[in-house]
C-alpha cells in the first residue's frame, strides 16, 4: 500500500512539474543518481544490491525561486522515501531562505558528499553514521548565505529551526530521524554551520545542533562538529570531520565522538608519453579513509580503515572497488568487507 502511495506521489510530482514547464517559460530538470554494488563481509554470504535509485526533480519558477525534491529508492525499492523536498528563495545576495524538508548542513558529508557518485569510498565513515546520522533530513526553515572577504576568501552561514531528531529515551541517534511532523511539543531544534574559505583550496567549517528528542521534551541532544577540506591540486584532495554528541538519557549523559580523514589522488598526475599508459592511468583514482567512533563503554568503539580504487568512465560515472578493515575495541570480529560499486550521476 505504502509503495503504491509513493508511486502515485511520484507520478503526481512529475505531472505537476511537467504541466508547469508546458505552461510557461520555466525550467524543469531531472537529475539524481543510481548505483548498484556487490559486497562481501568475512564469514557472511555476499550480496548484490540495487542500492540507490534517487531521482531529483528540479524546478525554477523565477531567477531567485527554485524547488527541488529527491526521492530515494533503496535496495531495489525495499525502502522508499523523500530525502528532501524544499523551496529555495534568494532574498538578496547574502540571504537565501530555504523551507521544507532539507538535508541538514552539519559538516559537509551529510549535505554534500554522501551521494554515491560523489563519495569516493563506498559507505559512510564511522563519525557520520551513528553520531551524525548521514542521510539526515529535517523539516523546517533555514537562512543561508555567503559573504566575500576580498576576491577569493569568504564566510558562509547556515542557520535553521527544525522539528528535530525524535524518539524514545536512549534510542540511537540514527533511529531518531524522520520526524516529519512534530506535534508532541513546541520545543523545536536549532542548529547551524559557519564556514570559512581563507584561500580557494581550503574550507573549514564549524557546526552545532541542539534539540529535545523525547515526547516530553525532557531529554536533549547536542551535536558539535568541525570539518575541513583541502584541494591542493586538481589531482589531490583531503577532507575530514570531527563530530561530538551529548545525548541525555535517564539519569545520565552519553558522550559519543568520532572523526574521519580521507585523501584521494587521481593518477592522471603521472606524466607519460605513452598513449597506452595514459589511457590506463587517466581514469584511475586511489582513495584512503580512516574513521573512528568512541562511545560510552567499549562495545561500540570501532575503527575502520578503507582503501579504494576508482575507475572513472565519465565525469559522473565510476566503478569503485574498496576494502574495509573493521576493528573492534572489545571483542575483535572477522568482519572486514570488500565492496564493488557501479555509480552513475544523472
Amino acid at each position, binding site marked *: 500500500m505504502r509503495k503504491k502511495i509513493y508511486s502515485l506521489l511520484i507520478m503526481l510530482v512529475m505531472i505537476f512539474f511537467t504541466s508547469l514547464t508546458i505552461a510557461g517559460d520555466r*525550467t524543469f*530538470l531531472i*537529475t539524481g543518481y543510481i548505483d548498484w554494488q556487490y559486497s562481501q563481509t568475512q564469514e557472511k554470504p555476499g550480496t548484490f544490491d540495487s542500492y540507490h535509485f534517487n531521482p531529483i526533480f*528540479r*524546478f*525554477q519558477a523565477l*531567477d*531567485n525561486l*527554485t524547488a*527541488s525534491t529527491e526521492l530515494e529508492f533503496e535496495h531495489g525499492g525495499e525502502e522508499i522515501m523523500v530525502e528532501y523536498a524544499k523551496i*529555495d528563495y*534568494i532574498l538578496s*545576495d*547574502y540571504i*537565501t531562505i*530555504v523551507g521544507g524538508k532539507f538535508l541538514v548542513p552539519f559538516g*559537509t558529508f551529510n*549535505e*554534500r*558528499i554522501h551521494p554515491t*557518485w*560523489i563519495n569516493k569510498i563506498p559507505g559512510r565513515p564511522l563519525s557520520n553514521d551513528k553520531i551524525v546520522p548521514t542521510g539526515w533530513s529535517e523539516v523546517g526553515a533555514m537562512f*543561508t548565505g*555567503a*559573504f*566575500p*572577504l*576580498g*576576491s*577569493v*576568501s*569568504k564566510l*558562509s552561514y*547556515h542557520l535553521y529551526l527544525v522539528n528535530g531528531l525524535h524518539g524514545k529515551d536512549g534510542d540511537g541517534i540514527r533511529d531518531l530521524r524522520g520526524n516529519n511532523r512534530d506535534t508532541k511539543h513546541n520545543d523545536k531544534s536549532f542548529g547551524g554551520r559557519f*564556514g570559512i*574559505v*581563507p*584561500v*580557494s*583550496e*581550503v*574550507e*573549514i567549517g564549524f557546526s552545532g545542533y541542539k534539540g529535545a528528542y523525547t515526547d516530553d521534551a525532557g531529554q536533549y541532544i547536542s551535536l558539535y562538529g568541525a570539518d575541513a*577540506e583541502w*584541494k591542493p591540486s*586538481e589531482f589531490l*584532495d583531503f577532507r575530514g570531520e570531527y563530530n561530538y554528541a551529548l545525548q541525555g538519557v535517564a539519569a545520565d549523559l552519553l558522550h559519543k565522538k568520532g572523526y574521519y580523514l580521507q585523501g584521494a589522488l587521481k593518477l592522471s598526475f603521472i606524466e607519460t608519453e605513452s598513449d597506452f599508459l595514459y589511457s590506463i592511468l587517466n581514469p584511475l583514482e586511489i582513495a584512503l579513509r580512516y574513521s573512528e567512533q568512541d562511545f560510552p563503554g567499549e562495545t561500540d568503539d570501532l575503527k575502520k580503515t578503507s582503501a579504494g580504487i576508482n575507475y*572513472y568512465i565519465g*565525469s*559522473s560515472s565510476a566503478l569503485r572497488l574498496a576494502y574495509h578493515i573493521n576493528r573492534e575495541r572489545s571483542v575483535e570480529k572477522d568482519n572486514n568487507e570488500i565492496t564493488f560499486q557501479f555509480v552513475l*550521476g544523472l
Partner: protein
Amino acid sequence: MKRLKVLLITVTIISGWILGSFVSSLFAGEEITGEQVYKNTCGKCHSERAPKERTDAEWKLLVTQMRVAAALTAEEARKVLQYLQDNN
C-alpha cells in the same frame, strides 16, 4: 603526549600557512575567474561536469540551487554560471 605535540605542531604549521595565504589574498586583489571557482569550489566535492552537458537554462537552475548547497557567494554563482553558459 608525543602524539599531542606532533598534532599541535602540525595544526600550527597548517594554520599559519592558511592565515598567511588568507592575509596575502586579501591584499593581493587578484581576480578569480568563473572557471577557477568552478574547479576549486564545485571540484572540491565532485568531478567537474563538462559545460556542454547542460543547456543555458539548465545551468542557471543548477547553479542557483548549488549556490545554497555549496555556500557560493552571489558573485561566485554569477561567474560560474557565465563560465558554464559561455562554454556549453
